[in-house]
């Protein structure tokens, strides 16, 4: 965290914007090409954020009291900067004065956090337990059993480990599935008891609850007297006590669960030759969601699903059982040749809706060599703010380490929180188009809602069932149509945005964070210089990537490359300095100059060039792109490359094939994978074991350095990236080469320096790209 403080571009607010000064009108906004967008990490921790042990004061317009409010100390009034309403301070603020300010009015505290006593928000009956225990975290594990014995073994041991890591009071449940879904009743002492649901039939939440003998909250089940026995156990009031048969505190059920896992076998249903195993992921998730439906709405709970293959049975099926039918590819999706796709997506949308209503999270851990249907399930994970990890085996560190981190405590903890709600208040004339990221629109209409809807839009509030400290949302703004230039100069030169995020932390406390930011309006008609100064290239690149991804998913026949190129050309024509029709005269302001390169790499990235990946991978990449902060997302688009050599300290290298040298080690961080690449000479030395010899200690250190750095990156990141260690000309080297600018290819390699490398590609290199850009940008 201290590191962050040094080079933290987001500051304590966790806010980054494409433009830090805003044009006044819609017309001018559209001339900016890059939309007005704000990236916010709603609960990103920061050492300077004060936590206030009371609830905030609210204006009638719902905005919370903030440092930008104009306070009249004598009259005990404050004026809301958003609606200019005057608000009286309540009696307990009577001590307020210029020298005695409450925390939220300190000018530096643009972000404050309120810790809300649960009792003030919750229903009275939760008073019975201590507030600490009123809402223990809930984890419902859902395990696929259609796997080979070895994989199942890995998955089981990961689960066991995870359960051991959970806090004692965390409630744990277990569902396994294959052809059918088995809900394990862990609270049944006589013998192992499971409820079995058929995998082929769609089942409603009410049916699930009814069939599990769970009282439906707010509705008393008839004859469910027995359910009342467990009332008040674990601090849960009676209305949902039946659930305690299935969800037990980790400390109580660890042994049971361990033995259940030990006994758990692979799915025993016969598989016809030439067929896929029958796997009812869809129903399993429905049942899990239904089970959690017995909880009252406000309790955060996570469904942690471990899936080892595609759903082939019942609703949510993504591929037929016949092995001769491959799982859909991007091409199939393009040609509408994926017969299950739309239906499955619709099904998972329904599931997402249910989970969001309940306030529960779906975390998906998919490990398979083939696809598992992440592209279809994405909606359920993303809308609930769930975690997702895609790996090729449950034995792989990408899964193992990521999975462990979810449950680990301490510094590296993900800081999982639940029941998040984000509300945005903004200055008049600013309209909200929508949000990209792990959230769901709450459909809360208001004056600030734009007619144009992008992403999760049409609202001023969003639900985030699950969120963690790295969760990041991108809000797209728009300005109202009205031509405000005519309004006299009384207009406030500042614009304000307030983000209020309420959530429940891991300890079960209800928190509210209020971030109020202000930016300056400028009249671009007068000068574009200020505008350019306020441009954030990284954020802009990431927002463009997110928009491109979104459009590719939602717009039929959308040509992302073409759209990016045109945007970039428009952008350059708009903001570049050039003489018309003279490419050579083209220059860009330094605060814009990196943007084309970002665009170049974005064009080549997995986000745009999807055909190299499966739809599952694409969905995975995009989900992470949408939920990571700007710096990380920028790395996804344009990996960072560090070069290690004897002659110098580790230094960033150009993301270019030319950076490859025989006597260097390269460390590539492309977010999803980290590649340590040994030049040929280094590799030879290492193979000869020089680093083990005392006189070549320096070499040993050189070899270690990139590993050390990689470790630091891995430690920070979730999901854990795939670590590839490779040598020049080795097969694994492709992970590096794919990301490098092909400045040297087989067609122009004649003048290469010895020891450098070439990339066999027909892709254009950055140089060619820029040349074309310049040419097109200056065209009249």
């Amino acid at each position, binding site marked *: 965290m201290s590191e962050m403080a040094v080079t933290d571009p987001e500051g304590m607010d966790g806010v980054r914007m494409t433009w830090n000064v805003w044009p006044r009108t819609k017309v001018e906004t559209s001339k900016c090409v890059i939309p007005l967008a704000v990236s916010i990490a709603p609960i990103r921790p920061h050492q300077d954020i004060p936590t206030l042990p009371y609830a905030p004061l609210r204006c009638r317009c719902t905005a919370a009291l903030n440092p930008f409010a104009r306070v009249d100390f004598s009259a005990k009034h404050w004026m809301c900067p958003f609606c200019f309403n005057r608000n009286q301070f309540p009696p307990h603020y009577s001590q307020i004065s210029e020298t005695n300010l409450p925390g939220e009015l300190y000018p530096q505290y643009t972000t404050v956090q309120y810790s809300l006593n649960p009792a003030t928000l919750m229903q009275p009956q939760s008073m019975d337990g201590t507030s600490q225990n009123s809402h223990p975290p809930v984890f419902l594990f859902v395990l696929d059993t259609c796997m080979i014995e070895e994989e199942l073994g890995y998955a089981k041991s990961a689960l066991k480990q995870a359960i051991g890591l959970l806090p004692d009071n965390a409630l744990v449940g277990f569902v396994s599935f294959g052809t059918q879904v088995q809900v394990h009743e862990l609270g049944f002492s006589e*013998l192992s008891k499971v409820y*079995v649901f058929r995998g082929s039939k769609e089942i409603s939440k009410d049916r699930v609850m009814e069939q599990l003998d769970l009282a439906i909250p707010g509705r008393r089940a008839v*004859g469910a007297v027995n359910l009342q026995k467990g009332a008040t156990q674990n601090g849960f009031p009676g209305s949902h006590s039946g659930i305690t048969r299935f969800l037990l505190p980790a400390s109580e059920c660890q042994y049971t669960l361990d033995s259940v896992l030990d006994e758990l076998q692979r799915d025993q249903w016969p598989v016809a030759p030439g067929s896929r195993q029958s796997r009812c992921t869809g129903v399993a998730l429905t049942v899990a969601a239904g089970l959690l439906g017995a909880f009252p709405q406000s309790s955060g709970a996570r469904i942690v699903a471990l899936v080892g293959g595609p759903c082939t049975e019942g609703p949510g099926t993504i591929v037929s059982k016949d092995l001769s039918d491959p799982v859909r590819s991007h091409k199939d999706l393009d040609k509408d040749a994926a017969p299950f796709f739309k239906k499955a997506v619709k099904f998972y949308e329904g599931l997402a809706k249910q989970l969001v209503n309940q306030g529960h999270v779906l975390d998906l851990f998919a490990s398979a060599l083939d696809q598992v249907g992440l592209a279809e399930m994405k909606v359920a994970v993303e809308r609930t703010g769930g975690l997702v990890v895609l790996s090729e085996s449950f034995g792989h560190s990408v899964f193992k380490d990521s999975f462990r981190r979810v449950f680990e405590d301490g510094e590296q903890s993900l800081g999982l929180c639940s029941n998040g709600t984000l509300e945005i208040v903004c200055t008049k004339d600013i309209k909200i188009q929508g949000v990209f990221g792990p959230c769901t629109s709450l459909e809360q209409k208001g004056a600030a809602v734009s007619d144009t809807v992008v992403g999760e839009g049409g609202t001023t509030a969003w639900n985030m069932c699950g969120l963690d400290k790295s969760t990041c949302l991108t809000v797209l703004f728009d300005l109202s149509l009205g031509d405000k230039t005519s309004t006299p100069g009384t207009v406030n030169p500042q614009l304000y945005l307030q983000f209020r995020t309420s959530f429940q932390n891991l300890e079960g406390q209800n928190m509210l964070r209020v971030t109020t930011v202000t930016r300056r309006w400028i009249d671009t008609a007068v000068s574009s210089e200020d505008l350019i100064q306020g441009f954030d290239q990284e954020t802009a690149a990431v927002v463009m990537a997110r928009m491109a991804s979104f459009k590719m998913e939602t717009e039929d026949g959308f040509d992302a490359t073409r759209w990016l190129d045109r945007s970039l050309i428009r952008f350059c024509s708009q903001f570049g300095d050039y003489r018309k029709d003279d490419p050579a005269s083209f220059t860009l302001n330094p605060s814009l100059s990196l943007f084309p390169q970002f665009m170049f790499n974005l064009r080549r990235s997995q986000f745009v060039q999807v055909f190299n990946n499966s739809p599952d991978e694409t969905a995975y990449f995009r989900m992470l792109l949408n939920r990571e902060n700007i710096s990380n997302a920028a790395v996804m688009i344009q990996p960072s490359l560090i070069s290690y050599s004897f002659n110098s300290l580790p230094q960033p290298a150009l993301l270019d094939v030319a950076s490859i040298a025989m006597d260097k080690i390269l460390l590539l961080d492309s977010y999803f994978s980290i590649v340590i690449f040994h030049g040929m000479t280094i590799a030879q030395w290492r193979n000869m074991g020089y680093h083990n010899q005392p006189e070549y200690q320096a070499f040993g250190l050189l070899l270690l350095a990139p590993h050390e750095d990689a470790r630091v990156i891995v430690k920070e990141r979730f999901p854990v990236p795939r670590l590839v260690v490779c040598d020049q000309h080795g097969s694994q080297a492709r992970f590096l080469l794919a990301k490098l600018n092909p400045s040297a290819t087989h067609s122009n390699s004649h003048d290469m320096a010895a020891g450098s490398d070439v990339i066999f590609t027909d892709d254009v290199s950055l140089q060619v790209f820029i040349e074309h850009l310049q040419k097109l940008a200056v065209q009249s």
Partner: protein
Amino acid sequence: MTSFLHPGAQRPGGSNSNSPPPSQQHPPHPNYGNPNALADNLQSMNLNRPNYAAPRASPFGQPPPPISSAAPSPGHWAGSQPVARPGPSPLSMITRPMGGPPSRAPPGAFIGRPMGPAGSHPPPPSSLQSSVANHVGPSPRFPVSTGGSATMPTATGVGALPFATGMVSSTPLGATQAGPVSVGPPVASGPRFGPQVGVPPPTVTSSASAPSQVPTMPPFISGPPRTAMQTAPSFSSQPQPAMVPLPGSSFVAQPWQMRPGQIDQPPPGPGAVQPPRMYALPNQSMTSISHGMAPTGASSGGPSKIDPNQIPRPIPNSTVILHETRQGDQANPPPPATSDYIARDTGNCSPRYMRCTINQIPCTADLLATSGMQLALLVQPLALPHPSEAPIQVVDFGESGPVRCSRCKGYINPFMRFIDQGRKFICNLCGFTDETPRDYHCNLGPDGRRRDADGRPELCKGTVEFVASKEYMIREPMPAVYFFLIDVSMNAMQIGATAAACSAISQVISELPEGPRTLVGIATFDSAIHFYNLKRALQQPLMLIVPDIQDVYTPLQSDVIVPLSECRQHLELLLESIPTMFENNRIAESAFGAGIKAAFLAMKISGGKLLVFQSVLPSVGIGALSARDAEGRTNISAGEKETHKLLQPADKTLKTMAIEFAEYQVCVDVFLTTQSYIDIASISVVPQTTGGQVYYYQSFSALSDTAKLYNDLRWNITRPQGFEAVMRVRCSQGIQVQEYHGNFCKRIPTDIDLPAIDCDKAIMVSLKHDDKLPDGSEFAFQCALLYTTLYGQRRIRVTTLSLSVTSMLSSLFRVADLDAQFTCLLKQAAIGIPSTPLLQVREHAINTCINILLSYRKFCATVSSSGQLILPEALKLLPLYTLALLKSVGLQPDGKIDDRSIWVNFVSSISAPLAIPLVYPRMISVHDLKTNEDESMVPSSIPLSSEHLSDGGIYLLENGDDALIYVGAAVDSGILLQLFGASTVEEIPSQFVLQQYDNPLSKKLNEVVNEIRRQRCSYLRLRICKKGSPSGMLFFSQLVEDKNQGCMSYVEFLVHIHRQIQTRMS
């Protein structure tokens, strides 16, 4: 035919042995080796177990006391018998000669088979004889005279013998019980079967017969576990030759004769081929009813005008009859179904397997119609044989399968006629001439028979079993699969039904056939279905819940049903814990339909037996039912006509399911342990369609019904039975099968599918003429049952019955089979009950009776005084039984719906030997049981009339399913103390459990009860009835000869019938 082995020969592979290697059908019962196992069970069940351990251990060389079967009955009855029936025609006593044949039987036996006990049994100790002799004295009971054909001409004479049957006019017996007329037992030395006319041996002569009876005993006491068995009517097999499935114990002896019907038939005997002269007159009974007095005398005058003691009543006969199925190349009319007989298969099948309502076939439909009788077969293909009967022989034709007619596919049988030097044979069923298969060829002897006919069972026996070849199998013969499904809903737990079921299953597990082919599964249900995975190496069983009861499924592909050997421990553990596990279950709902469906899905691959224990009205899930009896009650007032609808299934759901079950060879047995309405009419559809059975424990009491539940379950599982069976009856040309009735599923018109069939199930086959038959020809019926044995062998049991065709109406009456006729009448009434208003059913029953009697009166009776009611001798009990039928539960309008439903259901598969007692129960007096005898004999029965009760008496009344013990108001407290451990009637708990106290009377009572249980193959529910209480009313309602239940008394009924006949005559 090289592959053929002589049936008698031992095959190494052991497929056709009819001799000891017990593997065939009914290998030694597991329990046999461990006599105590059973005993222990019994002990825990608090049963009464006289001598249980001893006989079990060794069948032979046992002291005789355990003799419990009919054999001893002669002894007991020896004296009274002849006296009792002085009336019977001179011929009638033929049963007596029983003494004769058995003497021959042991050594020669029937086929010289190693019959085991029969031959080797040491002669019974003399004590037995003496005891027999001791009781020869005349008994004052049974004054009814029947039999003889001569009538009392003086019908008007009031006190004078109004009823007379038989040829010789009998004198009233009131006074002289030892009626000299009595045919009595033929003197042993005399021509055993010769007509005894005019030889009125003194009663005492019966003692003379006693010695000759002695030899008959061995076969009976041979059943080693006799007494043990009866306590727990386990009827398990014994180490007998394979053919005798459940020899000793399971044999249903009928120590009391229903009627003197056989009287007019000479007993099987070498020479006695039904001399026609006997039938000149004898086959009618007459009763004189004064014309004038009938209407008035009905109520009060009965006794005065018509001596109730003189009217036809079933005459108990406890001697064993030896019956040869054919004599002199003619079918021999069988002995009464309820009698104790040993059949010898001399070409026709034993009447146990197939019985025709008339033992000659009318040549035209008109003739049949004129007689008023119906033509039908009662088929019971796996019926329990008498232990002394020769086992059915198994014939293996190798891969080619049995020889069959190429046109009608009839199986080779003794009546196929070989011609052309044996190269061809004429099918006796369709008349087609078939080529003899080359390797089956054999030359004919001078008598036109094949020379090897006597050596080949299929050519000389009416019943044989063929080993089925591959072409009779669609798949591998199925394993023995038992799936137990137990209701654990709140009610079931509270009334203790679940615990009872679990304990019963737990005990029965050890009785299941051993071996890897025995698979078991278990599930419980309330508003969800709980399966149990028993195949778990490491841990306790896994409980798998199927909550979706609208659309069920099986929770595991395998492992829900596992080989018994792999899960025995888990199973026992589980059964032990189920009652506690659901102890506090508050779920009142019960998903019966879903439960059986789910269990079915689990069993679908293999098929098998599904045993369901249900305690409440199925209220949720597939096939949920509603308490429509309540609705029904309100409707009764609205319209009486609609009540029968409540006896129909509520809807088609269960029927549809049942048909699917049957298709996959799943048989459902339902044990209804309930205290309230459960809608048997709907539920019973499933067992009925799948060849199963409904057991009903009305007002279930954990205290008194647990033992019965266990014993029912045990018998259900251990009785001889077959799986995945198909049955068809073929007839010779001219008659065809009209319909089958029983518990089965019928998908194609000609065959019936039986997922399971057991020894207790009978099927009624109604027949109809479609052509005129040549007079005097032979007419054959052949029933073929293809089934899989418990041990996975595929078999075809072929039962052939050949009867002669007649054009004489009088012949038809002469050879009418009362038991079969009445059983058909009963079944038809049962069929009618759910679909037609009760009034019609009752009228139909009465009319059938009247029409038969009218026809006889019109066309056959020789004496025609209008004041006389003349009954055909063979059918003289028809009025009594008809009356009893009218008074039975099913035909009573005020009965509870479930009681009537279960009655209808019970009747649908009932066999003739049990049909009679169902409507006309047996009543014996208990307070005066003769305790100084050492046989566990059942005493002679008392007519079902309150006149025969005394206030100081205790009576036991049983109908083969239920038993009532009536305690009079003034019983000696000493007797009460001895029998019930209570000194006053009031002290006897109404939740009655028969206990054995340490006194001879109590022991004797227990012996008697156990003997009855054994005979009926049913663990009777004992209920105590006290005068003045509702239970007492119940008891009196069973006394069918009384005027009760809004029905006439027996005498009144006879008067009624007589008047009807008279009306129609004129």
